[in-house]
């Protein structure tokens, strides 16, 4: 098949359903008199007015900043501790039940506790995100480090690859598929915690704005906020997929060849 045609078909498959759904929403809501479900056109106009204004700096930026700092913190702490625990058998077995317990706590339940400690400022919200998102990264890193191939491990040891070089060239690459899987879970937990911590107590941010809109019955504004949160989640997951494809290219290639596909 010609490349152009193939691209066209892919694009067709990707766009048809979304276009149909949005059109249906548009038409169905066009002369909606339901106060809670305003016309899509109104929502979209409001979207521009609300978010491409002062709020971009005052609400969107603080939220996204807290999210990124918290998420990065969770990944750094999770991978760091995970490598440590994964490499030490006794330490791992001592800490395992405690870590499993922390992973099992629904992360938003930690918000009231952490706000007791750290107030309701930016630091507290970053800590909330770290403390909830760190567990999947940590436990997956432990698993990944533990499962490093024995032959590779012994080979690199006999070649005298130790210390940082061992970490850089053996442990981290071998554990990366697991680590990335943990990072994916951590990302969605981070977004949830960003929103919830702002809904719980805040003076700015996306979660705060959306709840304010709802409480003051600014319905189109509320819908536009929900759309924005949805878009944020979508864009971040897209960026993550790009990151994953780059980092794990070797791994997916290996899997394919093992499964005997081309």
């Amino acid at each position, binding site marked *: 098949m010609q490349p152009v045609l193939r691209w066209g078909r892919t694009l067709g498959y990707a766009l048809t359903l979304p276009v149909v759904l949005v059109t249906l929403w548009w038409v169905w809501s066009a002369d909606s008199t339901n106060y809670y479900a305003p016309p899509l056109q109104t929502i979209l106009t409001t979207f521009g007015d609300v978010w491409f204004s002062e709020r971009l700096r005052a609400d969107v930026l603080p939220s996204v900043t807290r999210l990124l700092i918290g998420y990065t913190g969770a990944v750094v702490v999770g991978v760091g501790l995970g490598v440590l625990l994964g490499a030490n058998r006794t330490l791992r077995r001592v800490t395992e039940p*405690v870590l499993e317990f922390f992973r099992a706590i629904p992360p938003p*339940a930690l918000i009231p506790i952490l706000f007791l400690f750290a107030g309701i400022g930016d630091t507290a919200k970053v800590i909330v995100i770290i403390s909830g998102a760190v567990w999947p990264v940590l436990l997956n890193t432990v698993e990944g480090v533990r499962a490093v191939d024995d032959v590779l491990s012994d080979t690199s040891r006999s070649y005298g690859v130790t210390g940082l070089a061992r970490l850089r060239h053996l442990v981290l690459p071998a554990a990366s598929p697991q680590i990335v899987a943990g990072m994916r879970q951590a990302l969605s937990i981070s977004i949830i915690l960003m929103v919830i911590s702002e809904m719980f107590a805040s003076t700015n941010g996306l979660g705060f704005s959306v709840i304010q809109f709802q409480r003051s019955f600014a319905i189109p504004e509320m819908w536009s906020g929900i759309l924005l949160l949805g878009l944020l989640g979508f864009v971040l997951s897209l960026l993550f997929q790009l990151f994953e494809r780059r980092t794990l290219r070797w791994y997916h290639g290996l899997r394919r060849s093992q499964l005997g596909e081309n």
Partner: protein
Amino acid sequence: MSATDVRPARAGAEPARRRRPELPSSVLGLVGLVAFAALLELLPRTGIVSAEYFPPFSEMVRALVEAAGTDRFWAATAETVQAWGIGLGIALVAGIGLGLLIGSVEVLRRFTASTIEFLRPVPSVALIPLAVLLLGLGLQSTLLLVVYASFWQILIQVIYGVQDVDPVARETARSYHLGRWARVRYLIWPTALPYVMTGVRLGAAVALILAVTAGLVGIGTGLGAEIALAQSSNAVPLVYGLVIFTGLLGVVVNLAARVLERRTLAWHSSVRADVGG
């Protein structure tokens, strides 16, 4: 040392040293838990952290035990578990049903892929204000959040699972003229089952998170609402006690999901290898 063992004696001593009797994992884990509890007790007692924000572990436990003596506590637990169970049930039925359908019909899969990829990462908590307006405060709103969060986890896994059907098995089923239902029952379902169980495990954890969160932000009842109430009335030890309890609930959910996974997949090689190794 056997005749075929050509390693130098020094290297041979290494495994011998490793074979030193090791404490079983359960004992070591218990040591870890006790040490952690002791740490939680000592940090406030020694004044390293303020006991006002961080009461000693014994006080957290006492507050929890006291609460556990009231009907209110168990009613809240029942509400959380109910929202979790109903929500997860709906998500399972919808996720498995739609997943089997979308996964086995190529055209459907192509047309829905982009929409699923768009809707899946939408954070369920973004729906909170909408749920409050459309469904009011209560179980229905909580269920909307729980179902939305766990549905995508399950759906995606089922779709992956259905596509994983072994080509040879599929051709064989075709040559034996297996009917549509027989194919679903004996070919697609067993292939997809490991993926379904992964979806169940992930979905069960996420469902509990949302069931508690709904209470925390005040749209539902249950343990989350109790935590928020304890915090606003400044009952600090009780806040900790309740959080510990939701953690234990989470552990039970995770363990139950793992046991279920192991039971249903006892025949499957990934579990068999896991058990053997």
